[in-house]
């Protein structure tokens, strides 16, 4: 009993304090709202993505139940229904497949749905009409209707060529229901009536057995859920052994892999965790700081509470109750704002990824509740962890110390007392030095948000449009096979006929048409390359490349991509060594050869050739095995990825020779790809005319235009700028809020001290100046720390993470800090004035009387 009432006293005290400390309330609640917004936005985006992928996988699989029994009998259905672990049990009866000619692009199953739920479970519940009841009724998806060229109208006659375990028969059904077909689904479903199913697929009498009895018709497909999706496989195994023991005739089971495959790839998970930690850090910083500062300011009253008998446990509880109250007020706002902004951001992300069906990604109520719960938990945890230390400080204060407490360090150094004159600056500096701990906390927390903003900005800025686009494309257009990198045989690479090339040349507004010819051949080694090969062989003795290297050494040859190009292409080459001289090169005596890729992409082995070496090509297709041709190496250079075959040998060559020489060496006149440039302003026209050629249905070539890549990329950058910008905006806001709080609290908690200084002769102007100097010190210290820590962080962490991204050019910048510092300086000039003005509304005497 006593315990309860004493709790009441403490919470009453907590509420009193809350009411008397409005400014702190606002700042704390604001920061809790911000933290909660961040968490909510993050979890709602993450949740939508994960849930969406799962939904989409389910639609692909064609079912939302966690597990199922394949090809069983009605009695098995009964058994599953009776089991206590299963729920939502549904069944379908297998009839056969529809094999109309119109369905050659997708498979169509004919089944009987046990009930509405069975149809729903496979995402095939009619949105118009009903499930079949009469013998000749059928319900199908719109995709089936479309494939048959039938209208979406009930009563339409649907012709079906039915294949029941190999027996084909023709039928005409009446459409009794249909639904929006799911393109991603592996098969389209058609529901027939029970009467029809009974006739064509009567329930078998024997257990299903693929080996001696390959008949599917009439077997039941039983799908069901468990209470939760944890360890579905284990539960299913347990279920099977419960129902069938160890017997041979246990049915096949299917586990819905929408539940089992990891829905998010590891990059997303790591990214998510990093984001959560960042948000946690940001939230922790400001909330900790506010509590720390305010508790330090109120330490006298805590001391007093102790003097009159409050235990430290009780004081701690009081602070915790306050924190909880702040949460109760702040979190709902945070949730609402967070979910709204999460929705907006998610839309932006969906637009850039533009591959998702909106249906899968709609946020369900269940998901919404989960998001809210998770964000609430995260926020609450952040707040509670943040106020732990301040709680301790408040609780462990000794009553006497607290009564004299004024945030100063005990050790005052002996100083030269004669020469100093006092100025607002010197007093300010003195104050900062004497309350070092507070100074450090404030500066560090400001620094952290600055550094975070700066790092984020550096990363965002590093995203390099040119790098991205040039990796994808050179020139304005490239025309090539649509799956060039998956092709293996050179004949198939060469698709663009001389006639097509002719057509491309006649397009108005074309500035340049450069065909790229390609053949596969061999490089024959002479002394020097062979020697280098030996060295390489030794060096890579223990690696995967060793095999290819010894092979090459033994044969004296390596497989080689031979490119024949016009001299326009030379302009897009970036030689690693040597100089490309187009006129000399045109003579046909010179070749450009690659530096060598070995192992990982960035790990280049030494080149086998150096400029001036002789290089021998052989075995061009259409050329005698023994015919060889010699070239002098003019330069070492890689073919740009966009116009290469886009596939690599583990260890292979790449030789670029003039088109004319190439033609002499081979009889294949088809080009692999064409690089094109348009005149200025003609871009769209040229694009249209190229597409006229490539969009023909029998065309296997596609066109890639620089414009589409630019657009694609700008969507991408827009997205990350939006997301990153929002995040850094909030972080900056948190930092500034933090700063304002520190400065304002610093002034208000020293109300009496300031009044006293005023009483003994420090003028209002001097006091204001002193306070400003304190702010300036914070700002300056923060700037210095941010630059140092930001620089370190950038070099140690950011570089290593972003180094792997090909579209990333790292350039460190202090820009955000440089932008923030004047803002902080401005704030440190304005806030003290305003705050001091506010406390000056009280007379000096009144302020002196105050506690």
């Amino acid at each position: 009993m006593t315990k309860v009432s004493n709790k009441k006293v403490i919470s009453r005290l907590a509420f009193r304090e809350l009411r008397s400390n409005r400014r702190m309330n606002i700042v704390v609640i604001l920061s809790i709202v911000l933290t909660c917004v961040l968490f909510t936005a993050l979890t709602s985006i993450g949740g939508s993505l994960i849930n969406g992928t799962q939904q989409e996988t389910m639609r692909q699989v064609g079912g939302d139940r966690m597990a199922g029994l394949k090809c069983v009998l009605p009695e098995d259905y009964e058994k599953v229904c009776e089991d206590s672990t299963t729920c939502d049990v549904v069944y379908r009866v297998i009839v056969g497949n529809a094999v109309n000619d119109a369905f050659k692009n997708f498979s169509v199953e004919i089944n009987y749905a046990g009930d509405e739920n069975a149809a729903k479970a496979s995402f095939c519940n009619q949105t118009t009409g009903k499930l079949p009841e009469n013998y000749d009724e059928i319900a199908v998806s719109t995709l089936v209707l479309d494939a048959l060229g039938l209208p979406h109208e009930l009563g339409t006659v649907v012709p079906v060529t039915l294949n029941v375990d190999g027996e084909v028969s023709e039928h005409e059904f009446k459409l009794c229901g249909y639904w929006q077909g799911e393109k991603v689904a592996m098969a389209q479903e058609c529901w027939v009536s029970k009467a029809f199913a009974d006739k064509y697929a009567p329930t078998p009498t024997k257990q299903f057995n693929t080996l001696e009895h390959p008949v599917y018709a009439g077997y039941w497909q039983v799908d069901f859920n468990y209470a939760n999706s944890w360890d579905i496989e284990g539960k299913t195994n347990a279920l099977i052994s419960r129902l069938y023991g160890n017997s041979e005739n246990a049915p096949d089971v299917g586990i819905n892999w929408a539940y089992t495959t990891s829905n998010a790839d590891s990059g997303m998970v790591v990214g998510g965790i990093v984001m959560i930690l960042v948000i946690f850090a940001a939230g922790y910083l400001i909330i900790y700081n506010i509590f720390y500062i305010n508790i330090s300011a109120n330490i006298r009253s805590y001391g007093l509470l102790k003097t009159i008998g409050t235990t430290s446990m009780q004081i701690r509880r009081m602070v915790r109750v306050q924190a909880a109250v702040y949460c109760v007020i702040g979190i709902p706002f945070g949730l609402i704002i967070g979910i709204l902004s999460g929705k907006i951001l998610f839309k932006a992300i969906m637009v850039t990824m533009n591959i998702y069906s909106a249906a899968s990604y709609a946020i369900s109520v269940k998901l919404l509740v989960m998001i809210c719960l998770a964000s609430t938990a995260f926020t609450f945890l952040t707040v509670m962890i943040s106020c732990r230390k301040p709680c301790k400080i408040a609780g462990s204060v000794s009553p006497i110390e607290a009564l004299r407490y004024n945030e100063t360090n005990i050790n005052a150094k002996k100083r030269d007392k004669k020469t100093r004159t006092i100025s607002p600056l010197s007093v300010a500096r003195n104050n900062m030095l004497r309350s070092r701990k507070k100074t450090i906390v404030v500066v560090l927390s400001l620094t952290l948000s600055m550094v975070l903003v700066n790092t984020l900005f550096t990363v965002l800025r590093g995203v390099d449009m040119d790098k991205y686009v040039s990796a994808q494309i050179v020139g304005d257009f490239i025309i090539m096979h649509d799956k060039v990198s998956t092709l293996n045989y050179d004949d198939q690479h060469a698709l663009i006929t001389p006639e097509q090339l002719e057509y491309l040349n006649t397009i108005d507004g074309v500035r340049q048409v450069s065909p790229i010819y390609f053949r596969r051949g061999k490089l024959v080694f002479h002394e020097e390359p062979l020697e280098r090969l030996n060295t390489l062989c030794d060096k890579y003795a223990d690696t995967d490349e060793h095999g290819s290297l010894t092979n090459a050494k033994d044969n004296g040859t390596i497989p080689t991509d031979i490119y024949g190009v016009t001299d326009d292409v030379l302009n897009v080459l970036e030689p690693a060594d040597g100089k490309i001289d187009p006129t000399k090169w045109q003579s046909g005596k010179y070749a450009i050869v690659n530096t060598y890729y070995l192992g990982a992409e960035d790990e280049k082995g030494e080149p086998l050739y150096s400029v001036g070496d002789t290089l021998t090509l052989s075995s061009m297709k259409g050329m005698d095995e023994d015919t060889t041709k010699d070239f002098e190496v003019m330069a070492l250079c890689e073919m740009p990825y966009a116009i290469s075959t886009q596939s690599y040998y583990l260890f292979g060559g790449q030789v670029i020779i003039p088109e004319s020489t190439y033609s002499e060496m081979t009889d294949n006149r088809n080009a692999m790809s064409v690089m094109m440039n348009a005149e200025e302003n003609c871009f769209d026209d040229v694009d249209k005319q190229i597409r006229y050629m490539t969009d023909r249905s029998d065309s296997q070539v596609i066109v890639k235009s620089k414009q589409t890549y630019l657009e694609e990329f700008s969507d991408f950058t827009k997205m990350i700028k939006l997301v990153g910008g929002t995040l850094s905006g909030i972080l900056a806001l948190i930092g500034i809020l933090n700063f304002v709080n520190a400065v304002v609290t610093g002034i208000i908690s020293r109300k009496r001290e300031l009044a006293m200084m005023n009483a003994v002769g420090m003028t209002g102007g001097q006091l204001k100046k002193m306070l400003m100097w304190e702010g300036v010190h914070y700002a300056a210290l923060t700037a210095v720390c941010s630059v140092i820590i930001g620089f370190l962080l950038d070099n140690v962490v950011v570089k290593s993470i972003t180094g792997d991204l090909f579209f990333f050019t790292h350039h460190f910048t202090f820009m955000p800090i440089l932008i923030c510092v004047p803002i902080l300086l401005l704030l440190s000039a304005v806030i003290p004035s305003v705050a001091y003005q506010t406390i000056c509304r009280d007379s000096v005497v009144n302020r002196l009387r105050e506690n």
Partner: protein
Amino acid sequence: MEVLKTEALTKIYGEGESKVTALDNANLSVRQGEFAAIVGTSGSGKSTLLHMLGGLDRPTSGKVYVEGKDIFTLKDEALTIFRRRKIGFVFQSFNLVPTLNVYENIVFPIQLDGNDVDDKFVNEVIGILGLADMQNRLPNQLSGGQQQRVAIARALAAKPAIVLADEPTGNLDSKTSQDVLSLLKVTGQKFSQTIVMITHNEAIAQMADRIIRIEDGHIIKGGEPND
């Protein structure tokens, strides 16, 4: 010569029901070099009067003249500067700047004015007040009485024309009280300072040239100098 003079000084705190007339039509005049003690019951308005005299608070009505100047015609900034040049204050409690050590606290007003510190004099004051050993300590390392003494030292160090002290000996034992009082008197005479001091201690009040008695905001005795 009259160095301090009030005219119908009235201070009313609050409004309506919670209205308190802390000072009601007080007329007071103090001559240069005089040592006056203000006595009265708790809540009678002593501190209020002293604050007005020092220009710390503005009266509801009435005037305060310091060396013939109506101080409330001054703007806040000017009033503060005027105060630090003319008046030394000792408050009833919480007197010191917590971030400055004892010595720095004492010379604070002098340095604020950018003046050189008269070290000989300051050291003398520090010596008499028994603070010589603790010049480098911070206020929170001092006892209440020690803090009070530092405040007195600060009030005297700038050699102000007027010293206003609100129970300066409230925290001191009688021996130290006597010493401090003597110091006040001696320096007062030496620099012809005017001292106005609030006290509850009759014995100390008796050491003054004049006793001003206040009751319920009215000066009931000693408003004019003794002749």
